[in-house]
């Protein structure tokens, strides 16, 4: 603790705190035990007078402000003092609102408040006001990888906002898959007819923009750095390579159509069986005249669209998901025929017709209105017939099997994301092997062969792999629930069908969002501020090199690939890539990683500051480490509902459960706590964890805590880890109370000194 620290403790008597608690006692504890320089009470601390009082002290030299009032999530605007470190003791939501106002309860309630004051005083001693590292850069230049409709839209949107853009496109022209279309699904009311693709206009606008540079026949062969200071090598087919500096990156690498040749049951060798892009080519060639089939050039009179071909199917090699656009695309393509001649028979064979989006239903109706026939059924096979492909299908509504010949059959196959190799597959495989999940191992091994065959798109020189992490089916990971653009590589945004299946309209929206996020990343990183979810945070992980054993756990566990390795094989933290989750801090076995305002010490000392009554007092102590994103707000909300929970609980908010270092638990148990509950977010494929992998890491680490407990000769029930959501307002108090009951059953810890 530096000598020039001057801590001011302020205790509020408003909101009923004055009536329910003995504030003089709180003040005394802050002074005698907390050893603060000054301690004051106020009737209404968040009022102007209260705030002015604190401000006056700050100008008199207070550097650290400890506020004993409401939850740290309340009154953030009032208690927002610049240039000082702030700690909050939660006396309102954490104490009086969760305890009954009875004479019986008074003593334990006061003890709770006393402890929170002790804890915050201990915590603040180990906090400093965070400052930026100084490694920031400001480069208003965005790299867009992929020149399809998503990339083009992103580039134009960013340029409109005044940022320079370089588009890197593998092909010889811009346009991507959308460029191969005859028309597109309409995105404007009345959503009735196929619309122009708009590619030509976009290309013209790009050519006309002095902010956009286009590299055709080019790929990105190396990317290094961090948001605000990326450096990328752009290699062209001609053999020349240029290196450019970027502030942020948008990956819009699109999709590949699923290979219809894998669908042998549908006679893919038949020239008159095509996929949707195949039909687009025919329509483009016809350009509004009769669409001719490939085999003999006969004008098509009778066409069948088979929906979900190789999609939404669990058969090996098929796509298990729905690509979202194909029903609308088939309707659009049926209209190509109808617009030329309404008497051409167009039949869409579907199992569930899905036309998402605002205009989807209108477009479907328009298709019906134009006499497109919709049959609910499943295609069994396609074979060569006398006049054209013969299709055998089950009509699901009439419950009969039909065989019919068509002039042309169109297969609505799905979208396969065009992502680079999954950087975490080998790690997942190793884990599955360790857990002896044989089925998963087989699947992952197959996937690994496929992933390894893929070319890298970004060629990141990150220690954690060359490309963007994926969620499932090769789609790049981004936080679906809370901040859908935020990927697992800060400052690199994926947009369009590489992120999830989508149509042109959705891809353009996605592209615009990604452009705005890229701009935000550039501006934030220039100021040293974190991206979501700790947006604006200036703290970043600092590490004591002398103590590091080079175990590399931090570099492996960081969900965002923020940590590289320097020449001496020490971890190299890239502040701008970091999301400030603290997972590295939780991982480090020698505890050399810390933030200015959040560290193993700041939490560890708060844990130790709690007064532990002796074994015979019948007053156990339960430590709750609650994720600040979901569990802690849920507890606040439970308090607003006045749900009661045990007075023996001491709650400490953590940035992410991933930041929990097991030393906190060992220390807590050693110093006499009777139990501990860890509350984090949902993990796995449907994760809600704000830091994607933090909760998962914590669960993994905690699965090993049993050994520690056994060594200490303690019951394993004393430590529990739960996945909770922000809506678990009733469940969380129950979890806490159940732990209190468990302690009652198994008895107090023998470690009370």
């Amino acid at each position, binding site marked *: 603790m530096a000598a020039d620290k001057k801590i001011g403790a302020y205790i509020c008597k408003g909101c009923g705190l004055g009536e329910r608690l003995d504030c003089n006692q709180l003040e005394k504890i802050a002074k005698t035990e907390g050893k603060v320089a000054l301690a004051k009470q106020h009737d209404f601390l968040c009022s102007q007078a209260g705030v002015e009082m604190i401000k006056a002290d700050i100008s008199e030299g207070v550097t650290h402000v400890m506020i004993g009032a409401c939850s740290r999530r309340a009154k953030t605007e009032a208690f927002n003092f610049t240039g000082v470190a702030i700690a909050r003791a939660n006396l309102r939501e954490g104490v009086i609102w969760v305890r009954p106002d009875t004479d019986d309860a008074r003593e334990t309630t006061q003890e709770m408040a006393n402890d929170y004051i002790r804890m915050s005083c201990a915590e603040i001693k180990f906090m400093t006001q965070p400052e930026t590292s100084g490694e920031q850069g400001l480069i208003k230049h965005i790299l867009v990888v992929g020149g399809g409709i998503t990339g083009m839209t992103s580039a134009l949107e960013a340029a409109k906002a005044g940022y320079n853009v370089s588009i890197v496109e593998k092909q010889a022209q811009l346009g991507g898959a959308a460029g191969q279309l005859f028309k597109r699904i309409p995105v404007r009311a009345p959503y009735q007819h196929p619309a122009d693709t708009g590619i030509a206009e976009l290309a013209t606008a790009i050519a006309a923009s002095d902010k956009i540079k286009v590299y055709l026949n080019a790929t990105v062969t190396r990317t290094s750095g961090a948001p605000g200071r990326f450096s990328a090598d752009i290699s062209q087919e001609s053999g020349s390579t240029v290196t450019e500096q970027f502030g942020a990156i948008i990956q819009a690498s699109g999709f590949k159509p699923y290979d219809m040749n894998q669908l042998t049951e549908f006679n893919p060798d038949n020239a008159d069986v095509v996929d949707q892009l195949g039909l687009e080519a025919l329509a483009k060639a016809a350009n509004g005249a009769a669409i001719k089939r490939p085999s003999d050039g006969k004008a098509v009179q009778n066409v069948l669209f088979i929906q979900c071909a190789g999609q939404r199917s669990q058969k090996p090699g098929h796509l298990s998901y729905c690509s979202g656009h194909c029903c609308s695309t088939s309707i659009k393509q049926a209209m190509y025929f109808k617009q030329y001649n309404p*008497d051409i*028979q167009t039949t869409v064979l579907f199992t569930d*017709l899905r036309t998402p989006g605002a205009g989807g239903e209108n477009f*479907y*109706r328009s298709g*019906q*209105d134009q*006499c*497109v*026939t*919709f*049959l*609910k059924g499943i295609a069994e096979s396609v074979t060569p017939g006398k006049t054209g492909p013969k299709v055998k299908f089950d*009509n699901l*509504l*009439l419950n009969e099997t*039909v065989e019919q010949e068509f002039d042309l059959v169109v297969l609505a196959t799905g979208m396969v994301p065009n992502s680079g190799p999954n950087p975490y597959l080998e790690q997942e495989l190793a884990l599955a092997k360790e857990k002896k999940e044989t089925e998963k191992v087989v699947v992952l091994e197959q996937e690994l062969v496929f992933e390894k065959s893929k070319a890298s798109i970004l060629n990141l020189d990150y220690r954690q792999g060359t490309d963007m992490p994926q969620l499932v089916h090769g789609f790049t990971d981004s936080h679906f629930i809370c901040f859908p653009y935020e990927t697992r590589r800060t400052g690199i945004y994926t947009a369009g069908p590489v992120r999830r299946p989508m149509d042109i309209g959705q891809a353009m929206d996605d592209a615009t969002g990604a452009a705005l996020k890229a701009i935000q990343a550039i501006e934030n990183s220039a100021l040293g501020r974190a991206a979501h979810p700790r947006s604006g945070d200036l703290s970043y992980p600092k590490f004591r090199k002398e103590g590091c054993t080079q175990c590399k756990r931090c570099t492996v566990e960081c969900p965002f690939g923020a940590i590289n390795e320097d020449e001496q094989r020490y971890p190299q933290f890239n502040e701008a890539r970091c999301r400030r989750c603290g997972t590295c801090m939780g991982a480090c076995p020698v505890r050399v990683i810390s933030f200015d305002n959040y560290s193993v010490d700041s939490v560890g000392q708060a844990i130790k500051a709690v007064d532990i009554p002796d074994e015979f007092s019948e007053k156990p102590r339960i430590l709750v480490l609650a994720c600040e994103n979901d569990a802690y707000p849920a507890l606040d909300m439970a308090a607003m509902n006045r749900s009661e929970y045990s007075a023996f609980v001491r709650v400490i908010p953590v940035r992410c459960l991933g930041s929990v270092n097991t030393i906190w638990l060992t220390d807590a148990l050693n110093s006499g706590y009777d139990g501990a509950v860890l509350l984090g977010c949902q993990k796995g494929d449907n994760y809600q964890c704000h830091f994607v992998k933090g909760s998962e890491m914590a669960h993994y680490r905690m699965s090993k805590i049993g050994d520690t407990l056994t060594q200490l000769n303690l019951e394993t029930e004393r430590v529990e880890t739960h996945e909770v959501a922000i809506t678990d307002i009733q469940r969380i108090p129950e979890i806490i109370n159940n732990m209190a009951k468990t302690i009652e059953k198994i008895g107090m810890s023998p470690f009370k000194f």
Partner: protein
Amino acid sequence: MSSVNTAMVEKYRNNFLKEVSDNVEEGEWVRMCMQCGVCSGSCPLGPHWEHPPQELFMMIRANKREEVLSSTSMWMCTSCYNCMVRCPRELPITHIMHGLAHYAKRLGLAPKEQPTNKFSQMFWNNLVQTGRVNELKLGLALYFMNGFSEGIKMSMKMRPIGQGMFFTGRMAPMEILGGHGVKDQKGFHAMLKKAEELEAARVGAHV
């Protein structure tokens, strides 16, 4: 089979949906059905039909022309309008049912023995004679619809009611001799003829 029928088969070949769209009253709505099945689930008679509305609509799309037009199903509709108020796509289902029945009848494909069809024909035949319904004749014809002995049995059963109506002046037995009619019968028949011509021309126009 009527010549109109042959002409229609010739004209629409394999596109029964279009034929229905063009020729059946409110038939253009059939293509808007999204096959949710709410109508079939709502129809109080649904369980007794061979093909409830949703299925009829699917059969139309599947080109089951013969089966649809010769079906007894749409003749079963009681015009309760349950389906129509519930259909999420707002199809005028009840009207389509009658439209289909009417079209089938016009093409000569309607099932002759279907009671609704039979009674409707009887009603029509009765009505066109004088321009007024002759209730006595219609009632008796209805009793004897299914043969002589059935008719006698039915008449005996209904005798007390008939007597009651007679004594209170609700039934005029003299109606059996011809009955009353509209004033200008000649004009009435001319009107019907004209209407038939117009209708034939309308259907013919599509042929």
